């Protein structure tokens, strides 16, 4: 049974008919574009088997992501953050995939994944320490934009796109070898699928079948490059065919579709099923990063048409229409989140940065004499330095 078939309630929820190819061996499947929040009549929470708690948790994570994202952008404009890749419009993918995981499952994200960290329960303060590189930054100011923390099983991303994919495969192979029941999830952009490491990673996984799920956050752009210039295939999901793996395409602006599909995949993989490629079709509403100007390469019209599919509003409308929350509860939630984030931002602005000698930390467990000598050299230099620090 294909993944979409295992989710009967979504099969009628076809918003756009996009056909993709699934299993090669045995027979062909015709799969819909998996969506829950798409039709005229939306399914009740009981029907899709998601508790109110979980629905609210996902909604809250999306709201928090949206709010914190805006604050980090402001901090960047203030010069407190070196560079930032915003999540605006892509919250449903980030929150939905993460909600499908257990805490022991390990995530290999990219540099644009705020919703993942928040859904995993990383405190806002820690993320702000990270983005502004304070003395409490869990990654000690070594790099910008990315986040990671072993306590949350989040592995900090390499900036070279797609190169975390083989790492995720290896991590999962080790888990399999050690008999751990963990699933590894790696997420990457549409641009990443053009790189050799996407291919080598998925192909390797197709032979060794470790517990890994591949999620493509297809926001249709790689900086300025539209997906039509990225690949000749009309979906990313069909790329799974090259490896004899199952590929599915979901509405990435529909947190329930993302969650349910990922959960179905993860549950199967945890029981030994082969890896799956999930394509979540979404749209980057903001700029690529704080260094980018999207007006150079796409129209306001296009962006506006996607604004109508805003993932936060769609979930909000669903929750209200199904009576899971009312307008007032929503307002309270939003202002609480706003307040919480603002308070943390205030605090982080008071903090100092890391010691200069962090430059030499975490290069080796057992550093060569050359590195140790250079550290001494810098120590000496700091005395006579005129250059501005941090």
């Amino acid at each position, binding site marked *: 049974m294909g993944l979409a078939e295992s989710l009967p309630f979504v099969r009628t929820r076809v918003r756009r008919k996009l056909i993709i190819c699934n299993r090669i061996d045995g027979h062909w499947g015709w799969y819909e574009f998996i969506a829950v929040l798409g039709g005229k009549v939306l399914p009740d929470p009981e029907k899709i088997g998601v508790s109110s708690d979980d629905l609210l948790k996902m909604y809250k994570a999306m709201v928090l992501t949206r709010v914190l994202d805006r604050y980090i952008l402001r901090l960047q404009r203030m010069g407190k953050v070196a560079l930032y890749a915003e999540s605006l419009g892509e919250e449903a993918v980030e929150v939905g995939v993460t909600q499908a995981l257990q805490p022991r499952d390990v995530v290999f994200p990219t540099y644009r994944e705020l919703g993942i960290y928040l859904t995993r329960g990383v405190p806002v303060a820690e993320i702000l320490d990270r983005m502004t590189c304070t003395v409490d930054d869990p990654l000690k100011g070594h790099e910008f934009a990315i986040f990671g923390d072993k306590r949350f099983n989040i592995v900090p991303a390499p900036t070279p796109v797609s190169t975390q994919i083989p790492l995720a495969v290896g991590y999962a192979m080790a888990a399999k070898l050690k008999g751990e029941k963990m699933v590894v999830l790696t997420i990457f952009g549409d641009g990443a699928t053009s790189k050799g490491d996407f291919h080598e990673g998925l192909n390797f996984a197709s032979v060794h079948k470790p517990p890994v799920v591949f999620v493509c956050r297809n926001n249709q752009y790689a900086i300025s490059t539209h997906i039509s210039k990225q690949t000749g295939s009309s979906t990313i999901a069909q790329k799974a065919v090259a490896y004899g793996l199952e590929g599915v395409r979901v509405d990435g602006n529909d947190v329930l579709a993302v969650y349910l599909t990922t959960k179905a995949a993860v549950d199967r993989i945890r029981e030994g099923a082969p890896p799956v490629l999930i394509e979540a079709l979404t749209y980057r509403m903001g700029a690529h990063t704080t260094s980018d100007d999207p007006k150079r390469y796409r129209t306001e019209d296009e962006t506006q048409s996607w604004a109508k599919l805003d993932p936060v509003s769609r979930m909000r409308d669903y929750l209200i229409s199904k009576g899971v929350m009312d307008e007032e509860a929503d307002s309270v939630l939003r202002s609480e989140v706003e307040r919480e984030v603002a308070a943390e931002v205030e605090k982080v602005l008071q903090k100092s940065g890391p010691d200069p000698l962090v430059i030499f930390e975490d290069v080796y467990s057992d550093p060569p004499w050359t*590195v140790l000598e250079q550290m001494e050299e810098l120590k000496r230099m700091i005395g006579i330095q005129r250059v501005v620090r941090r």
Partner: protein
Amino acid sequence: MTVMTFAKAINDALRYEMRRDERVVVLGEDIGVNGGVFRCTEHLLAEFGPSRVIDTPLSESAIIGVAIGMAMNGLRPIAEIQFSDFIYGGFEQLVSNLAKVRYRSASHYFAPVVVRTPVGGGVRGGMYHSQSPEAYFAHTAGLKVIIPSTPSDAKGLLLSSIRNDDPVIFFEPKRLYHSMKEDVPEGEHTVPLGKARLVREGDDVSVITYGATVYDSLEAAERAAQEGVSVEVLDLRSLVPYDWDAISKSVKKTGRPVIVHEAPRTAGFGAEIAATIAEREIYSLEAPIIRVTGYDTPYPLVHERLYLPNPDRILEAVRRSIGQ
């Protein structure tokens, strides 16, 4: 003559050569409609169209590989790698094909590709937007390696690189793109590959450098002058081939070489310069050969000014060289 930034000078060179020679094409990520993330290819798409200004998929290996194939079939492709930190995905194509197509085919085929790529730090770019990987390419026989430090040299060396029948890795110090401007000749303007530029004459110490640290070296030289020490600054501009005559001349004069680059010290290109001086000009030396370089760590986001060979560090080396 027009005042141009470094980025504008690159843009001007590309446009000029694309008008002059229809074999020239540019390809890379975000270089067309977006004009390049540093705007070096701005307006080219509008003028030359999508078959000569090619927005590519995100695949460094294919960008280099496709450029090689184009060059073998008579074009003069200029491939842009968005940051030199991402060139490693194309490393196999660079080392195994670009550098070796001519040898492998005994000159039946050759690949006059220019790979343009921003290099170096100083823009709060962190680990993956600040690296200086030039030594990898200098060690790869079959490639030429160029790194200009002024807008005028950027244009002149780029035109020479495009016209050269050998593959060229062309590094553009990214912190100069928009900060550095000067008069640049309009139209035809070439600077020969392999010739250093004597940026400042001096008698006591020779600072041998290239790329953005030319300016840090100049600042250190100014400050040294105030202390009564006369520092010569040599901008190599070209690492393969490098201008041994210019180095040798300077070292003969001062006897005190200080080599400066941003890349990590161990097995960096500075080692090659030092080694060659130690082989050929040892009898001219009056002091140890000192290197002022990035440290042997990944490029840090915080405290990058301490990591870089800043004027303080260069000045300290100059003082050490003259025995203070």
